[in-house]
């Protein structure tokens, strides 16, 4: 039994390393001023990548803009998704297929097409190059994820728990706080994480809607291939809020 547990521990450690370790190359590249083959480590360390990346202030402004948009999109997605997710998760719809398909269908269409399609409308409404326009554009993609993921947390089990709580005299607000949230917390955390990340990493729609006031991925892309040090440095900055979101989701969610 102990041997089997040991094998399992080794296996999970290897799996964890396989997924986490390759990203160390980004850190090395970001802090390398010179790194050529066949060297396994950079020949010269430095901060050129960060200096050149943030020269002019464009990347800093883009970082703030990306954060504002992603946080707003996350909150809006969860609020709008909750009622629909509940109905779908509890299987209260006689024919859920068409509703799920309608809500999920934006995920199935390329952001390249959606971003361009929205731009025509946003030009007429004066929403291009604005935070509001970006929020609406990203909402198209984050809302389906929020609904689909959140719906997996609702079901007959949760409903039964809520009915039991109601029969014990708990009001709607206390039921929500004491029964619903603790039960749905892991799924809610994943849904929030995904909503944030979908908005955070949007490239095609952001470029189409707000090319004049770019988000961080739009600023980052031209450096990929051309200047690996700057690309790696901006990638690290790009990763930081996403990592914080992941850690918060882990803490708020399943890992207790």
């Amino acid at each position, binding site marked *: 039994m102990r041997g089997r547990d040991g094998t*399992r521990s080794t*296996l*999970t450690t290897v*799996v*964890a*390393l396989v*997924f*986490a370790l*390759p990203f160390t*190359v*980004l850190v090395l590249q970001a802090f390398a001023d010179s790194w050529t*083959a*066949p060297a396994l480590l950079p020949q010269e360390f430095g901060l050129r990548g960060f200096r050149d990346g943030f020269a002019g202030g464009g990347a800093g402004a883009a970082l703030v803009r990306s954060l504002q948009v992603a946080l707003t999109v996350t909150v809006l997605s969860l*609020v*709008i*998704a909750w*009622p*629909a*997710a509940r109905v779908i998760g509890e299987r209260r719809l006689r024919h859920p297929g068409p509703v799920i398909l*309608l*809500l*999920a*269908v934006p*995920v*199935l*269409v*390329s952001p*390249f*097409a*959606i*971003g361009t*399609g*929205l731009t*025509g*409308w946003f030009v007429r409404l004066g929403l291009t190059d604005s935070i509001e326009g970006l929020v*609406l554009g990203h*909402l*198209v993609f984050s*809302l389906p994820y929020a*609904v*689909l*993921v959140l719906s*997996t*947390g609702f079901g007959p*089990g949760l409903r039964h728990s809520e009915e039991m709580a109601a029969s014990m005299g708990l009001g709607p607000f206390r039921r929500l706080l004491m029964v619903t949230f603790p039960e749905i917390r*892991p799924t809610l955390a*994943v849904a929030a*994480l995904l909503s944030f*990340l979908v908005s955070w990493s949007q*490239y095609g729609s952001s470029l189409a809607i707000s090319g004049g006031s770019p988000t961080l*991925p739009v600023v*980052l892309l031209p450096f*990929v291939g051309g200047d690996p040090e700057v690309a790696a440095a901006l*990638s690290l900055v790009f*990763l930081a809020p*996403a990592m914080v979101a*992941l850690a918060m989701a*882990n803490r708020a*969610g*399943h890992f207790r």
Partner: protein
Amino acid sequence: MLAPAVGTTLLLFGGALAGAVEQSFTPPLGGGLETWTLESWRQVLGDPVFVDAFWFSLRTTLVATLVSAGLALLIATLMRTRSAAMRTAVAFPVPVPHLIVAVVAVLWLAPGGLADRVLGTLPLNLVRDQLGLGVVLVYVFKETPFLVLLLLAVMGRRLEEQEEMAAVHGIGRWGRLRWVIWPAVRAPLLIGSMIVAAFVFSAFEVPLAVGPNYPPSLGTYALEVTKSDAIGGAGQAAAALLLGAVASIAFALAILGLFKARREPDER
């Protein structure tokens, strides 16, 4: 209850789709409804490069999705009782944008990359290979942890209690897997796989970075026609991407049909 989400989707997605459809029918030099033409659609459907791109995207999507789903089930089962640190390590690629994963893949797997430096030489060419193995590898690396997260979210205390109850009633390991674990993980696995498949089918950053020069992926094809034809390219790109969207929707319908077909026998 459905109104907020359905209304938002209809307004934003419907408007966007109408704009994309309009673009695919608008002649290169513009004009109103009376000037609409099928020219962009004709050019795309008659282009052998588009056909090759479509099949390449379909093939890589199916392989990447099936491998990711299988691996996710295995890893989630392994990880469900592991520490938070271990789970966080596995989930690490989830918040990382595809573009960055592709860059990391190139830094490791390209000729002269870190893998070559560490191992001497790689037995397989995984960057710009004709079969698209590099593309599949990047997507498997990126999407498996996403599916693992979805599965772990439903593999909580409630499921453990149900398993314990089943064990008390004398149901063996395989019986618990079939009657307790599988019904719990089926929905997130299928929905997650649908999301993965749709994303892989329409994305273009990864095929651009590690995919072969030919055939292109569907997304790469759309990008290339836009770049190569400044006047008529946008309409062709819209037509190509809309055709890709139709294929994605058909794929999603197939998965939903499978979900329904698998659920009904259980409910009887």
